[in-house]
């Protein structure tokens, strides 16, 4: 009984662990291994070991640096806009008004939709001839003429960012709203007694109260946005040219269309290492704050 007691949690965890090792950790190791080889998909028998050659090639690859730059713009713009819009919505939905319940439920809708459909809807709305946005823009005098948003290198990135902001802002609304509800009312009352106005109580009560939720939500979203490629894949495929090609998309395209698994794997590994460094920095900092 005693022995069974000690082994039991491991027995219960075994299926989940086995699945994770088999379908996540093993593939990750495999990718690391592949990245050290010259692997061409339709030439499965010969995969010579090339050491770090793929990683060195990457340094001289202008497309890599360009995708990295695109990724930085994509992540910073998407996450900050999602956050600001989500925070604004959360603050508004935290106030009292009659139809608050319905508003809180409906604001989540974009989050529930598949990326493919979101890409499709925005492609439709941004269409040059038939899109509603060009139509409304022209009619209101905001645009002189319809713009081929997704076909122009200077507007394509902004267009896909618009779509991902739409998709992702409800996540912030929902998490920040839960965080707002966790701030005790007494703190606001105390601030009011001390003569704090609206802005002061936002700065000294709301923001500090929300800080841990904001930090975690930003981190989770950043990882998600940095990794996500399906929305861009559907809307522009990385184009026009390479205007919207982010790092994961470049890795995917090199491995898949280019059939160069070794190089694609090296790109995926580099992306993972970058994200890992962000996560580790965050973990170390929050651990230090907790112990301080």
């Amino acid at each position: 009984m005693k022995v069974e007691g000690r082994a039991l949690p491991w027995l219960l965890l075994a299926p989940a662990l086995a699945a994770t090792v088999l379908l996540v950790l093993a593939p990750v190791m495999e990718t690391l291994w592949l990245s050290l080889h010259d692997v061409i998909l339709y030439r499965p028998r010969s995969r010579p070991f090339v050491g770090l050659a793929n990683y060195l090639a990457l340094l001289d690859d202008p497309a890599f640096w360009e995708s990295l730059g695109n990724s930085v713009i994509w992540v910073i713009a998407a996450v900050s806009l999602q956050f600001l819009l989500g925070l604004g919505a959360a603050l508004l939905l935290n106030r009292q008004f009659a139809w608050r319940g319905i508003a809180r439920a409906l604001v989540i809708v974009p989050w529930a939709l598949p990326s493919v459909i979101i890409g499709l809807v925005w492609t439709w709305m941004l269409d040059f001839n038939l899109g509603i946005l060009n139509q409304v823009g022209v009619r209101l005098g905001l645009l002189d003429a319809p713009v081929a948003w997704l076909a122009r290198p200077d507007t394509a990135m902004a267009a896909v960012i618009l779509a991902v902001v739409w998709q992702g802002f409800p996540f912030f609304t929902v998490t920040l709203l839960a965080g707002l509800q966790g701030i005790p009312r007494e703190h606001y009352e105390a601030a009011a007694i001390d003569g704090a106005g609206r802005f002061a109580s936002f700065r000294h009560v709301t923001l500090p109260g929300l800080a841990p939720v904001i930090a975690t939500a930003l981190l989770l979203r950043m990882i998600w946005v940095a990794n996500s490629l399906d929305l861009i894949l559907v809307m522009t495929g990385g184009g026009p040219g390479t205007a919207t090609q982010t790092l994961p998309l470049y890795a995917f395209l090199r491995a898949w269309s280019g059939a160069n698994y070794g190089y694609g794997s090296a790109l995926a590994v580099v992306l993972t290492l970058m994200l890992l460094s962000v996560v580790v920095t965050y973990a170390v900092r929050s651990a230090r704050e907790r112990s301080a």
Partner: protein
Amino acid sequence: MKRLRLLLGTEVPVACILAFALFPWLWMMLSSFRPDEDLTRSPVRIIPGALTLVHHIELLQRTSFLDNLRDSFVVATGAVMLGLLLALPAAYAFSRFRFPGRRALRVQFLVVNMFPVVLLVLPLFIVMRTLGLLDTYLALIMGHATFTLPFAIWLMTSYIDGIPGDLDEAAMIDGATRMQVLRMVILPLVVPGLVAVGIYLFIASWNEYLFALMLAGRNVRTVTVALQMFIGENEIHWGLLTAGGTVVALPATVLFLLVQRRLVGGLTGGAVKG
């Protein structure tokens, strides 16, 4: 005066945000009911001249969309069952036992969530091809269930944490083994949790695209892949596409609205605890 301030300061901005959140979705639905003359017309008419079901009918009769819906349904249902089967015992172990390595393991499950899908999907493609599982239900079910496992376990653990441990002990004093406790005490009490986690798994699988594209796509073609292929054709048929989008978005949206509060609770519980 107070009423006016509420209206201008709160209700109007909220209405604007809701309009932003809902407009694309409503526009897609509306487009799917408009005749082709309306959809191919420039300048666009915002108010439709007529409404029609032709695109929905064509979608179901002339394309493989019904098969795609069936494939998506089979994969998502399989992912729910496999996911729950893996998550429930793991969550029970995390909730009821204190053992060395427990914390590290819980963190490990979250770190797994961080790996880019591209990183996993490339080697998984090779693995599945070697196993002969490429383009089968099983490949997608396994992929989806595993990839959603970390959050499923996290959510499930918080549900089991909510069931008092005294119940387990009382049952064991009466001679039940741990497995009997899990089956006869925990399982009936945790049904709401199973429903919430199950719905999460269903939506995640139903909406997923990249695995479905890479690990299947020919014999087993889910709706997301099928819709994307409609776009790939030379002339985009927006009526069919928006009709397909409307049909696919419906189950996910309805299910999401049903369990949003529970999912959000689990999610933010995780976020707040860090």
